[in-house]
């Protein structure tokens, strides 16, 4: 009989891999029966994971690290053997603000939009009316990407503007009602705001960090040890789902599946746009294609690079105003488990990188990299400001970030 695994998720396009692994029979081929449990807050997804309602969960990457380090809840070590995708989020501003800082017709240039925004943000702050931004969770890549971009453009996230949590389904509402001036959220929620005329998409987070880690598959460490074999089969099934997901021939069918009430309960047209890397930036405008808006498969996108976990930890330290704790840094790094990923895919056709860590942001062109298995070429993984994160020198990196 097929072994059963329960996976918690939030209704977002990047919950696609476990959903499609189930729907297309990739899980079944691996002798797995997947049960998917939908929730509406990350807090509940996490609670279900911690108290055994689910075996694994679709999760914002920083939350897996925060949970391991005991932020907000008693510490419980989580493990991430698989990255569910890179990027796929966007920054949407109130339409009049977007017009002032970005103009029309295409995604903005992060540095230019930021420079224009800085002028407005400072004027607003001086008038006692700080610009307000909504992100989906305190421990989300959205929060860290938005802050990285703002700070990189000279806008101090905790002084010049306000950033608060807005659940994805209410992002469009919050923009419309003037509760916030901008949101950083995953799809389809930017597009929902655009369709309602509540805002204009000005940037994709892939422009802030071309290969930024987004959602992960997280498990409690003891559950991973206990169900190691089933988890490795799940990894193979989700890899097959990833391959299927990025094939244009399947976009239509996959959008229809994801839109179903038990999954995203959303508009298949908007979902299809996101998975084909196309965005309608403002209501009544033209659809713009932005390659690798979402990144679910190529370049071993699902490989849990230890350096990604370390980058997330560096941002946690940066924005919590704490000093770097070498013990916490090690714990954070250990959350990502490339060893499990390798063990699951060794002997398959999937490429496996030779290293487990890399210098993030160091590639500005296509580069062939050493592998344990298969061939792999990595494309640009730049941050918009050209800075480079070397995990071997986290304190140097943090000092460099805050010095300007």
């Amino acid at each position, binding site marked *: 009989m097929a072994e059963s695994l329960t996976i918690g998720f939030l209704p977002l396009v990047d919950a696609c891999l476990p959903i499609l692994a189930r729907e297309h029979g990739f899980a079944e081929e691996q002798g797995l029966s997947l049960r998917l449990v939908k*929730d*509406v*807050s*990350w*807090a*509940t997804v996490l*609670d*279900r994971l911690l*108290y*055994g*309602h689910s075996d694994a969960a679709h999760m914002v990457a920083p939350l897996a690290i925060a949970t391991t380090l005991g*932020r*907000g*809840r*008693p510490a419980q070590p989580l493990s991430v053997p698989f990255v569910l995708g890179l990027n796929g989020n966007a920054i949407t501003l109130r339409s009049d603000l977007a017009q002032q800082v970005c103009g029309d017709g295409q995604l903005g240039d992060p540095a230019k939009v930021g420079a224009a925004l800085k002028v407005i943000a400072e004027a607003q702050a001086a008038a006692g009316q700080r610009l307000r931004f909504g992100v*989906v*969770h*305190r421990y989300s890549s959205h929060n860290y990407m938005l802050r990285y971009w703002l700070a990189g453009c000279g806008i101090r996230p905790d002084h010049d503007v306000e950033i*608060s*949590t*807005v*659940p994805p*389904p*209410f992002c469009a509402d919050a923009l419309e009602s003037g509760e916030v001036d901008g949101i950083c959220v995953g799809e389809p929620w930017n597009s929902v705001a655009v369709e309602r005329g509540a805002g204009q998409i000005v940037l994709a987070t892939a422009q802030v960090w071309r290969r930024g880690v987004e959602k992960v598959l997280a498990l409690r460490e003891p559950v991973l040890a206990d169900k190691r074999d089933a988890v490795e089969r799940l990894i193979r099934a989700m890899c097959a789902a990833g391959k299927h997901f990025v094939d244009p021939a399947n976009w239509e069918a996959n959008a229809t599946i994801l839109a179903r009430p038990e999954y995203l309960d959303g508009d298949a047209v908007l979902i299809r746009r996101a998975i084909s890397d196309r965005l309608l930036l403002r209501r009544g405008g033209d659809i713009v294609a932005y390659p690798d808006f979402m990144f679910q498969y190529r370049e071993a996108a699902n490989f849990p690079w230890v350096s990604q976990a370390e980058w997330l930890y560096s941002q946690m330290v940066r924005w919590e105003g704490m000093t770097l704790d070498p013990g916490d840094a090690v714990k954070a790094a250990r959350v990502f488990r490339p060893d499990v990923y390798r063990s699951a895919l060794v002997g398959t056709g999937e490429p496996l990188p030779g290293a487990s860590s890399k210098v993030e942001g160091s590639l500005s062109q296509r580069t062939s990299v050493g592998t344990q298995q298969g061939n792999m070429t990595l494309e640009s993984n730049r941050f918009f400001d050209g800075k480079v994160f070397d995990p071997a020198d986290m304190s140097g990196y943090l000092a460099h970030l805050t010095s300007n």
Partner: protein
Amino acid sequence: MRIAIIDESAARASIIQEGLVSLADCEIFVVTERRGLVARIGEIAPDVVLMELGNPSRDVLEEYFAVSRALARPIAMFVDESDDEAIAASIDAGVSAYVVDGLSAHRIRPLIDVAVRRFNAFSRLQTDLAEARGRLADRDAIDKAKRILMNSRGITEPEAYAEIRKAAMNQARKIAEIADAIVTAHKLMGGS
């Protein structure tokens, strides 16, 4: 002790409230509105917050607890890390609880127990209600089917019911399903 119940369902909130008033020394505040939630919680300054697990504002509230200086003491989920059983029971029941750090376990435990029982009672009520609605809908379909048979075949009501029941038994289906099929077929054939 000041208790805030946050629930978009006013019916469930009142059922929980009703359960908690029996506890001594409790002042209870019900918040059903999503907008302005954080400001409202700031005003209430609760010692305990009870919230449905499926409430989409949980992340907002947790962030508020994490960064807020409005509340004198930080709020942690449950008092005592060792009280895993109570936490597990409440999650099973679909209730999340936030408790001001430092409140003693013996004061919190009875409150959580009541909330869990009330949440469970509410879910049972919902199930019963759905079943009752289903039974009403069934009866409506059976009445319609009987009338269709009476009109089209000139038989009496008991005869019509006997026909439907016989068909259900022969096909090992529910009487309501056969009735539905008759009503649907009748509509397709141009009946009203």
